[in-house]
């Protein structure tokens, strides 16, 4: 049987994370209510979501170039996600680990060069 008690640190970590994020959400609301002027209107009460209205017909048109930027962002975001564990374990993986990551980065650079040459980064 798995000894669950060895996962206690994770549980504590999650509890602290939950507590902190709850505090970050509700503390500003409370402080604002106590210190500032309180006269809400419809615009102020609506959700803020990246500049888009939060609830609207999903079939509305918007520029496909947003997608291109988003896709490129995800690729390089994930690259960073790979780089962190690679960096801290480099003493274990050694030269093979270093070369492998350089090959990976090289491949991403080729993909980036392709996207750049194709004009994926030009807005106009």
């Amino acid at each position: 049987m798995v000894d669950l008690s060895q996962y206690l640190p994770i549980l504590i970590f999650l509890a602290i994370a939950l507590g902190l994020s709850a505090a970050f959400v509700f503390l500003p609301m409370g402080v604002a209510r106590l210190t500032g002027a309180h006269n809400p209107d419809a615009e102020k009460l609506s959700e803020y979501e990246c500049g888009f209205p939060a609830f609207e017909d999903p079939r509305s048109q918007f520029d496909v170039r947003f997608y291109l930027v988003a896709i490129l962002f995800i690729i390089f975001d994930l690259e960073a996600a790979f780089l962190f564990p690679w960096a801290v374990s480099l003493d274990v993986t050694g030269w093979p680990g270093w070369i492998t990551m350089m090959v990976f980065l090289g491949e991403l650079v080729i993909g980036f060069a392709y996207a750049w040459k194709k004009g994926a980064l030009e807005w106009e």
Partner: protein
Amino acid sequence: MDFAASLKLIAPELLMSVSGLVLLLVSAWVGDKASRAISVAAAVVLGACFFLVAPAVCSGASGPDTLAFGGQFSADAFAGLAKLMIFAAGGAALVIAPAFFERFNAMRAEYPVLILFAVLGMSIMVSARDLITLYIGLELNSLAAYVLAAFLRTDDRSAEAGLKYFVLGALASGILLFGMSLTYGFTGTTSFEGIRVALNGEMAMGALFGLIFMLAGLAFKISAVPFHMWTPDVYEGAPTPVTAFFASAPKVAALALTMRVTLEAFGAQDDAWRQIVIFAAIASIVIGALGAIGQSNLKRLLAYSSINNVGFILIGLAAGTPAGASAMLVYLAIYVAMTVGGFVAVLMLKDENGNSVEAIADIAGLSRTRPALAFCLMLVMFSLAGIPPLFGFWGKFVVFQAAVNAGFVALAAIGIAASVIGAFYYIKVVKVMYFDEPADVVKGESDWAHWALLAISALAISPLGYLLTPWLGNLADKAAAVLFLGV
């Protein structure tokens, strides 16, 4: 671990990745006018890989010498034989594409690059001896395939096919990943060897769920019933050269992968997966045969035919013996020849403006206007139906023989009965071509490359193909034996 030895074993994959990246840069800088040159270069790369892999297949390579990177990758004879079929099908997809896409003014330099990456992914799939390698290969293949399905991007049907394939493919990948994570959780390893050792004896309920989820994901990739619904739509909507590619190479890769997962990783628990494979086999044969009857489009008909054929191939897997695995490989080789021949013939059906003719009604009386083409299409149809003396019969014969020898007489009997139903629609196509009044729609001419490919496939599936059986059977036996080393 000897790095140099590992790199030498993955030489074909290295060659494909490096040349794929170089060709990608060429396609960006030179542009679409280099499409044909890049196609030729990609075909040369595939040819070179073919000859790099061939020696391992002929010598029946197996054992620790074929394992690269600590057993994550295996360049053995089984993987080699599957790779030879994949390279051949990929090469065919390169040859038939330019003429088709140039009619729509849509030939792009990325097409050969995507084919090359898809083939690379499949080549990693069939060599996988670890769940992680399996997944990387599968995704590399799938991502290239999603783009290829939507390659005619101004065409609604092609875009729809791409979207459908992507959404359902992503779902199947998710199911497969879930199964892999369960398997890893209950066996503590991702290597096929380790999973086999961990599952020797009792199998935990969680590992069983892992196996079922993995089989469900793989069944989607080979379009076995009940995960076949996407096949007719994607095959009909995708550009015909891409459909020819989808129906041949990924089928080989995914079936080879299924064989590795079931026979190598879960080889000690064959009772657990056998029922699923038997169900999928019978259901695929019956639904593939019944579904094809009402079709009026040749590409949809061939899609149902591929579902039907996958069912027959799975009968060999249900047997779970070296003879069954060898029969599957023989069937796959014949299936690739039949599929490529069938789709090349469909590509050559063009009206006077050069547009594709896909409706069965439009090829009425083809034997009088285009006797050679009608004859080749007839050979393909009879071979797919498994009518002797054509070579398609031999594939069905070895599969049924393996099933009967393994004690699955009822399964073989159902398969034979259902193949009679299947024969109906194949013969219907032949009847329309030979006995109906000419519709006089097919008028377009095709270049020599199409004729050459059609002639090669027609020769391979003609009775002359039986000359190959001792040689092909020997190669398949040696390749199949690799999977049973651990027993």
